[in-house]
Structure formats: structure tokens, C-alpha cells
């Protein structure tokens, strides 16, 4: 009798946990519709393992480089671990986590986020929290994720001990039940791939006409915290024998001040790193700002991203010695599929716009 | 005992104080009644009941209350 009641208790507990898990899956945003950016981080795991190059950074990487083009032109296997408004500490922990899945030859980091020294230095709390979720929710449970959470939380999140809600997102999305849509049920178990190896394709065109302006700053020195994480990146890559390449994507806004550029040039020199400011080589890349951007110069569209990939792939081959894998049949087979998906997507998006 | 019963009866004519054993537990007497009884006893018997004796067990029946008064008079 006693045995039986314990058995019932355990079975009930198991059922409850399963139901909670299901509920959590249902309530989490799926990011399949208008805010696809939130799905990017989670897509990495399906494509991890054999990439020679990993890009890490904010929208200036996931909107500007097309890994498929680099494969087609140079046989480079690459993937982007980008997310909206990714902070430098988040980039660091993503890098750390990446090494658990693969050891690429080259890590490429976009340095724009050096300008944000602390979680407080950008956006208001609600917005920052939403960005945090988009970068962190997609990560699998790991030390890196936990540390990234602790480094990223806003004041409000700290106040209610929001770190636990990254372990159990149900605690964060508990009140989303009143906002569920068909999308939440449709993608409950299986999500679509929204990106091509981390690249989020845009086919629209909105020409760049007027210069985006920002007022001058009082102090152009990057913050201590930013440098702290950049130092950690250098060390991390060194310990894995991976070459760290710093880039500044050719986006025209937010403004990339000369004073900032100078600091990066000096930093790269001091640590013997390759630093490429792609803003300076726009003409060589061949970007036509009347056609190659979808939001008036902030990000490139697919036509710009292909041009940039073609240009940057050459640098990876020439300066970093990244290998051509087109001769490898197994790799080629995998990538052939990716290429097909890419063109199907491009065709579909072009038809829509 | 007679005087005591008279005091109680004045307060609650409807109760049979000779048999009722749960005056407090059954919420027949409330704190206002208790204080009134203490004041009456003070004037009739010239016995002051200190606050520490204002416990349910001393007020649950007329008998218990009488015992308390006796004890205090003895001291």
C-alpha cells in the first residue's frame, strides 16, 4: 500500500514536471514572425561543429556578412553568432561557449559594442531586458550562460532576482498566456531556421540619402569594462590557438568616431591582432549606398552582404590562411544544402518585396 | 457563592451559571463581562483579582471563579 502511494506520488510529480516544461515551451516567445532576431542564438547549435570562422557581435555582423557567399567563393566554412544589441560581455561568453562546440581557426569580433561600457549605458530598462532575453534565452544551459546572465541583468531584473528566470524562462514569460498567438502553438516543438548560418537576410532597399548625425562626445575613451572583456577575448582565443580578428563593419550609423578607431588601431598593434576597419574600404568593397542597404545606411541588405562577404573572405584567405573545403565531399554535401536553402529564401523574400 | 451567582445572573440572566462549565470556551462571557465581574467582586468581596489571574480556566464556571476568590481572600 505504502509502496503504491509513493509510486503514485512519483508518477504525479513526473507528469507535473512534464506539464510545466510543456507550458514553458508554449509561453516562450518563438521569434518566428516580426522579431526574428530573437531566434538567431538558438540556431547555432544545429550548425555548430566544423566552422573555420566564427563571427561574434551585434546586428553589424548578422546583417552584413553572408557565410553562404564566402563558401561559394572561397570554400570557407563560417557561422555568425550575432544577436540584436549584443553587449561585449555577452559576446565574450558566447565565444567561451563556442569553444565547447568547436575550435575555429579564426574568431571575428565586431568592435562597435566597445562603446557600451555597462549594462546601464544603452537603452531603457524595458528595451535592454528584451535584448537580454533575445541574446540569452537561445543559449543552452551552461556556465557561460549563467555568467553572461549575471553580467547582463538590468536593475529591475536584479531586483526580482531575474537570473532564475533565465534558468526557468517560465518565470519570465508566465503572463504571456494572454498574448499567445497561433505562432506559439505552430512552433511549439519545431522551429524554422530563420537565418543562413547566423546571417539574417533582408532584401529590401532603402537608399542612404542624408548623413546620420550624432553630437560630439565629451570623452572618447572606451570604458574599463569594455577593455576588460576585450582583454579576456584575446586571452581566450590565444589559449585555444585561435586567431582573433577585430573588425568594424561598414555600417554608417551609429557613428564610428575617429578617436574610437584610433584606440582600436593601437590596441590591435599592442596585442598583435588584425584590425580591419571596413568603413575605410567601402569603395574597394563596392558598396553602393543607394542599393545595398535596407535602412538608409545602418545595415546592408543581402546584395551588400554578399559584396562584403566576397571582400572579407579574401582577407580571411590571404591574411589568416583559412582553408578551402570545397574539395571535401562530406563538407560540400552539407553546404550544398545550405546554399539551396539560401537561394530559396532569397527568391521568396525578393518575391515578397 | 450566592453573591457571586447574583453578580453573574445580573449580567446574563439567560444563562444557568450553576451548571455551565464553559463560560469562556462557549463565548458566553467576553472580556467586557470579565472586567465588569472583576469590578463587582472588588466592590462586593473587597478582593482585587490581579490581571495574571484573568485566565479562561478561572472564568469558565462559577465554581472555578469562586475558588479563585476564596484563594485570593485566603492570602
Amino acid at each position, binding site marked *: 500500500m505504502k509502496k503504491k502511494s509513493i509510486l503514485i506520488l512519483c508518477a504525479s510529480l513526473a507528469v507535473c514536471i512534464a506539464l510545466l516544461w510543456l507550458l514553458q515551451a508554449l509561453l516562450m516567445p518563438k521569434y518566428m514572425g516580426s522579431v526574428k532576431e530573437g531566434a538567431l542564438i538558438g540556431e547555432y547549435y544545429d550548425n555548430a561543429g566544423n566552422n573555420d570562422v566564427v563571427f561574434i557581435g551585434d546586428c553589424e555582423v548578422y546583417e552584413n556578412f553572408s557565410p553562404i557567399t564566402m563558401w561559394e567563393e572561397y570554400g570557407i566554412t563560417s557561422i555568425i553568432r550575432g544577436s540584436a544589441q549584443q553587449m561585449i560581455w555577452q559576446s565574450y561568453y558566447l565565444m567561451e561557449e563556442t569553444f565547447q562546440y568547436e575550435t575555429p581557426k579564426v574568431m571575428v569580433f565586431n568592435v562597435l559594442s566597445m562603446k557600451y561600457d555597462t549594462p546601464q549605458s544603452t537603452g531603457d530598462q524595458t528595451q535592454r531586458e528584451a535584448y537580454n532575453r533575445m541574446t540569452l534565452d537561445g543559449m543552452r544551459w551552461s556556465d557561460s550562460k549563467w555568467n553572461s546572465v549575471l553580467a547582463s541583468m538590468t536593475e529591475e531584473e536584479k531586483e526580482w532576482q531575474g537570473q532564475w528566470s533565465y534558468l526557468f524562462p517560465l518565470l519570465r514569460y508566465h*503572463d504571456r498566456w494572454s498574448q499567445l498567438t497561433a505562432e506559439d502553438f505552430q512552433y511549439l516543438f519545431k522551429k524554422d531556421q530563420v537565418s543562413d548560418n547566423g546571417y539574417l537576410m533582408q532584401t529590401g532597399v532603402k537608399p542612404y540619402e542624408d548623413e546620420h548625425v550624432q553630437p560630439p562626445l565629451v570623452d572618447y575613451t572606451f570604458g574599463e569594462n569594455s577593455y576588460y572583456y576585450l582583454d579576456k577575448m584575446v586571452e581566450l582565443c590565444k589559449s585555444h590557438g585561435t586567431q582573433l580578428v577585430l573588425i568594424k563593419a561598414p555600417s554608417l550609423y551609429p557613428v564610428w568616431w575617429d578617436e574610437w578607431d584610433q584606440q582600436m588601431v593601437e590596441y590591435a598593434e599592442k596585442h598583435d591582432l588584425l584590425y580591419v576597419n571596413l568603413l575605410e574600404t567601402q569603395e574597394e568593397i563596392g558598396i553602393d549606398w543607394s542599393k545595398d542597404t535596407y535602412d538608409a545606411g545602418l545595415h546592408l541588405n543581402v546584395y551588400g552582404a554578399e559584396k562584403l562577404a566576397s571582400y572579407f573572405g579574401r582577407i580571411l584567405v590571404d591574411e589568416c590562411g583559412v582553408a578551402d573545403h570545397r574539395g571535401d565531399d562530406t563538407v560540400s554535401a552539407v553546404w550544398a544544402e545550405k546554399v539551396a536553402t539560401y537561394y530559396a529564401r532569397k527568391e521568396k523574400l525578393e518575391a515578397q518585396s | 457563592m450566592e453573591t457571586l451567582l447574583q453578580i453573574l445572573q445580573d449580567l446574563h440572566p439567560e444563562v444557568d451559571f450553576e451548571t455551565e462549565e464553559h463560560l469562556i470556551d462557549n463565548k458566553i462571557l467576553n472580556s467586557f463581562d470579565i472586567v465588569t465581574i472583576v469590578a*463587582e467582586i472588588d466592590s462586593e468581596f473587597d478582593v482585587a483579582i490581579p490581571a495574571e489571574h484573568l485566565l479562561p480556566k478561572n472564568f469558565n464556571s462559577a465554581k472555578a471563579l469562586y475558588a479563585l476568590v476564596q484563594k485570593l481572600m485566603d492570602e
Partner: protein
Amino acid sequence: MQITSFRFLLFVAAVLAAYYLIPKKGQWMLLLAVSYCFYLWAGIEYLGFILLTTVSTYAATMAMAANQDKQAKFLEENKETLTREDRKASKVKLKKTNRVYLVGCLVLNFSVLAVCKALLIEPFQTAAAAGTLSFLSIGLPLGISFYMFQSMGYVVDVYRQTTPAERNPFKLALFVSFFPQLIQGPISRFGQIAPTLYAPKKFDGKQLSFGLQRMLWGYFKKLVIADRIAAAVIALRGPEHTGVAFFLLTVFYAVQIYGDFTGGIDITIGLAQTLGIELPENFIRPYFSKNIAEYWRRWHISLGEWMKDYIFYPVSVSKPLLQLSKTARKKWRSFGQRLPVYVASVATWFVTGIWHGLTPNFVLWGMLNCFFIVLSEECVGLYERFHNRFHLKEKKWYGGFEILRMFILMNLIRIVDLFPNVSDYFSRIGSLFTTFNFHILWDGTMLKLGLTELDYIILACGIVLMFVISLIQEKKGSIRALLLQQKPVLRYALIFALLVIVLLMGSYGVGYNASAFIYNAF
């Protein structure tokens, strides 16, 4: 550490695990250690306050106990030779010497409490904010009103020899600081909790499960009901809300404070139960009361009992008052008889009022309660005649009417909590009779109070659920015992459903400002 925080839940889980794993002899010591951890979490600067109360309580009670022992021994040794007068004199002497310790301890503690509370009043707070009196900005030490009253009750009990003194200072320290009740009571008596507080406890699945169920129900009341309606209570305090809106405020506040306070107590008592410790009940479905005296026997019981035993009785049977009563009786018999009751009531309600806060509105609150209690006591005869004349007691609806009447009256009295400026309160009360703005109920005003339609639906369902549960408790007793009679699967399903409701509909996390328990502030 907020009782509704994840940190608190983790803390509780860790305490529970350790509690049942360590040797049973050490259980109460573990509780003492974690209680101090809990207290330190609130701020190390508050440690002095609880230590002061603990040490002074221990010193006073031990001194009294020593004298009592000495006296008992003296009586025992000289049993034959002592006359009755001698024995009486020895008793009087004991009381006299011990009274010094009693009064010293009470004065010391209550002056600390008074100073702490006084610092919360406007002029001091303004000065603190301006930085001119920076030491004032520390705020009220966690649970000071609760642990201090509990300790002082114990000191009086030892003085009266109704409770033996606890000779182990660490055990006493646990009595003062036991963490579940640090936050908002109940104000337990030493005799009530000592038997289970220190006893070694075997793991008892049923106790644990009952305790957890009660905590869950507490979280439901707090997170789903009280914290949700809080926004509207804040909004309705605005000066533009008069008449019907003010009436609505009193009802909303009744719901909020009920969910908040009884929910919090459910969490406290449930938590203690998981530890095998029995705390006294603090509420017995107070909103079902039919008169104000009954209400105060069912709402915040531990405070009411404390006030009765340590203020009301001592004042009413004090020598001068009895003397006064005697004198008055010669002139007006029945008035003289009731005089001690009136004076003691005023004293009790004055103290109860300022216990809540040293502002005029709380004094007014106490006096209003006092007035209506005395009034209803005095009109008992009148009522009875009225009832008998119309045979009202036999009619079923009349009980409901009495409950509703009581609910509205208490709402109108209770709401004075929210108006530190007493004249605001009276002008709102006045508006009840002059402003009949019923249109606010359907013209969209209700949706501008920070609650959406969905919130109202959840609140309505939640209130119905609380009402039904209370009704079942009133008629059939413990819900958990009833649940236990059901098939396990159904039982688990119901508990799980409640858990899911709390998880999904609780007001916590992003976008909800974690609100502290109302009774933390007292």
C-alpha cells in the same frame, strides 16, 4: 529577503533539507542560525536592535526567575514557622523587587520601539532625506514591532509566573528571532510555541505536505489577488476619487489587505508547519464576522490577544480604576460598573492605533474601533429586543445582512490607514453622502486604474475562489484534511492546478514592481 522572492524560496528549501538531515538535537540550533542569517540579510545595522531585545529580555527574566526561586526555597524551608502574613509579605516583596526588572525591561524596549517608529514620521524623514540627520535613514528594523511585542509579552508572563523562564539564552534568542514570524507575526506567546519550537522533529511527510499546501495558498492570495489589486488601490487614493469611487477604494483595500496579510500569515504558518512547528492562528475568516467585537476576535488575533492580556485587563483591574469605579457607582450604578471597561478600551485602542504608526490617522483608527465596540456592547440589550420583536435571528438572510453591514463598516474604518491627513478621510466620508457618481462604474474610469479587463476577471474569479474556500472551511473544516480524503491523483491535480495558477497569474517578475507586505511596515 522578500518572502515572495526566489531567493527566499531557495533559502527555505535549503533550510528544510538541512533541518531534516542533521541530528534532531541540533534542529533548533539550526533554526537559530538561519533566523539570524535571515535577519542579517535585511542589513547588519539592524542586528543591534534584535540583540538588545534578546539580551534585555534574557537578563530581566533570569533575574526575576532567580528571585522567584529564592522565594520558593525560602517558603519551602520555613514551611512550619511562617505565618500566613509572613507568606503574603514574602510574595509582596518578590513582586516589588521583580517589578523593577519588569519595568526596566519594558521601558528600555518600548522606548527603542517608540524612537524607531517616531523616526518614520514626516519631519524626521524629510530631515533624513535631506541628509541632515543621516543616521535616521536606516528605516524601521525588520519585524521590530512583532518580535518586541512577543518578547515583552514573555517578560510579563514570567513576572506573573504564568510561564517559566527559559534558562537557555540561545533558546530564548530563537523564540525572539524565529524567522518565519519575523516578517509579520503572528505575535506568539511563549507557552504556545515553546513545546514545538525546541522539540526534536522527525520527518513527517504529511506535515510537510500540509505546510507546503498552505504556503501555496498564501502565495495565491498574495501574488494573484493582493499584488494585482494594489495598483488600483494606489490609483484610487487620488483626491479626484470621491463618492462611489471612494466606496470602491474601501472594498478594494479590504481585498488587498486580506490577501496580503492573511496570505502572508498562511505562508508563515505553513512554513513553520513544514518545520514541524505549530504557530497560533492569526485569522479565522474575519470577514464573516457579524459584529465588531467578533471581528477583532477573528482578525489579527495574536495582536488582539496581546492587547487584551497586557493592556486591557491590567488597566481595567488596576487599583485606581477600581477605586474610581467604586466612587462612581455610588452616584450612577451601571455607569460606575462599566467605567473600567471604557477607560481600558480607550487605552487599549490607543496603543493598538499607535502600534500601527505614530500618525494621527492611526490614532483615529483606534478610536473609531473603540467607539463602535463600546457602542455595540452598550446596545446589546436594545438589539436583542429589536431582534426578538421581529424574529430576525430566525431569518436566514439576516445573518448575511449582519455580515455585509459589518464588512462595510470595517471597510470604512480601515481605510483611514491610507489617509495620513485625517481631514482628507473625513472629506471622503462626506463625499459618500453627497457624490453619487455611479457612472464611473461603466464609463471607462475603472480601466484607468492600472487594471485591465483581464485583471478584473482574474480578480473576480480569485475572490470567488477565496470566498468558496472560506465557506467550506467555515462549514466543513480544514480544506487540506478534506483533500486528503480524495483520491491521490485528484488531490495532486488540484494542488498542481493551484500551483499553475500562481505561476501564471501571479504578479511577479518584469513589469511588476515587487511590493512588500503591508504588515512589514508595522
